[in-house]
């Protein structure tokens, strides 16, 4: 009944996420394009840079309409990953919030630290299980 938790992922990791998984990620709204299959629904493109490579994430916005786009602003998206034909992945947004002014460096740090902690804990637990 309840959806899966949207785990934080960095934009450059989305392409390797399993289909159907719920994710939370961020990016600047670069573009809005009309969907090829359904022209009434738009798709948003969130882009971000990492190690001088640009990563674009296509976001399906049908569930979050009406959605007032503000181009070049930062957005946080929470949604489910879907594979599209040929060109990779798309996130079907359940939540899409504008967070312009966000301190991205701090968010990244928080994500990294939380991840490290949870990983350490899991390792510790599995270590205990072995013995």
């Amino acid at each position, binding site marked *: 009944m309840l959806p899966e938790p949207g785990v934080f992922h960095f934009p450059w990791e989305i392409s390797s996420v399993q289909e159907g998984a719920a994710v939370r990620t961020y990016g600047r709204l670069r573009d809005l394009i009309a969907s090829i299959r359904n022209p009434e629904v738009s798709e948003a493109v969130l882009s971000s840079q990492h190690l001088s490579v640009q990563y674009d994430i296509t976001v399906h916005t049908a569930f979050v309409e009406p959605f007032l786009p503000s181009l070049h602003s930062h957005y946080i998206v929470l949604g489910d990953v879907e594979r599209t034909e040929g060109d990779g992945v798309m996130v079907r947004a359940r939540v*899409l919030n504008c967070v312009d002014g966000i301190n991205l460096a701090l*968010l990244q740090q928080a994500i990294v630290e939380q991840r490290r902690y949870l990983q350490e804990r899991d390792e510790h637990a599995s270590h205990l299980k072995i013995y």
Partner: protein
Amino acid sequence: MQTEQGEHEPSSLLWGLDPVLSSFAKLYVKDILRMRESSQIPDVYFYKCHPLFKVDVLGTVVYKREREDFFCYGVDDGTGVINCLCWKDEKWRENTDAVNSGATLQVSNKGGFNPVEQLKKLKLAQKLSAQLEIGDLLRVRGSVKTSREQREIMACSYYKVNDPVMEVQISWMMEVLHLYRDFYDKPFLFTKSVQHLDTAEGDDLLRSLSVLRRASRLLMSFIREKGLGSFRPKDVQHLLMPLLSCAPSCSTTQQESTVAQSSSKQVHHLFRDVIKALQDEGLVFRKVISQDEVYQVTEQDKELRRVTKDIVREDSGREKYAEKGCHVLHILSCVRQTYSRNVSKSVIEMVLRCLERDSEIFSTIDQNHYKYISVTD
């Protein structure tokens, strides 16, 4: 899911020693869903060896269902999703109606500060912060329940958080992490905390407490024996001298002159502590704060007793107090006006207890209300 099965569950008698029990634990939703339930008491859970039943969660609403008297929000904090039952405030309807009718009465009162208007705004803001949509950020505090094999949070308080630049969420992530590393993941040693008082660390504390207690007893028994109504510190301070010889032996390595000096200083400090303790208990008080330090002994103060009795007698007859009797605070303020401003609540309580013991007055509905025993009753 069962985790940490290897952890031994401490006896419920000791749970209260763990500070996590009485706080709202800021756990990851994932852990709330997984923590094991106590085998001794239902609705108490264990994260590692910490007993807890209240949690504090911040997350995005990803699911919403409205029922007649509550909202059910699915809250996602990035590690898990949990249902939160958030009760609607029963007073909403009544209050808004009352406020509306009040506002129409005040319509003519234009300009300036209008409290009714402000109250209405406040109620509206309160109501808005309690209604959330999917995508909003929710902060919820409440107790953890398991119903139909599903964990949920029964909210005791909840509100919508405005977090336009994710500041709150980021700092929350950091804070929770620290709490885990510094508290939740550290085992709480129940048995050690009980033994604590016997160990060397607790020894000093225990000894100074017992010295204080003995000193208070000594001073009070001297006062009672001699029937003192009042005293000055310099006259009774020397009584405490013998107690210091058994106090921490700091004198062995020191020079004799400094020993004498430090012991008089110690006596002085001890006396200060004793006087403070006696004042807190209401056994002694200062009628007048002046250069001349004189302490009144509450039990022996006939004047205070008479004034208090008169107040209770007179006010017991008044209509306002006829049913329940006079409240302690009322008696206190009257005594302060007529007798001395420096009388504390504990002093008055002491006097009232004495009067009650001697069947001059009696307590009515509780230990805070007193009435005079009149002969004609």
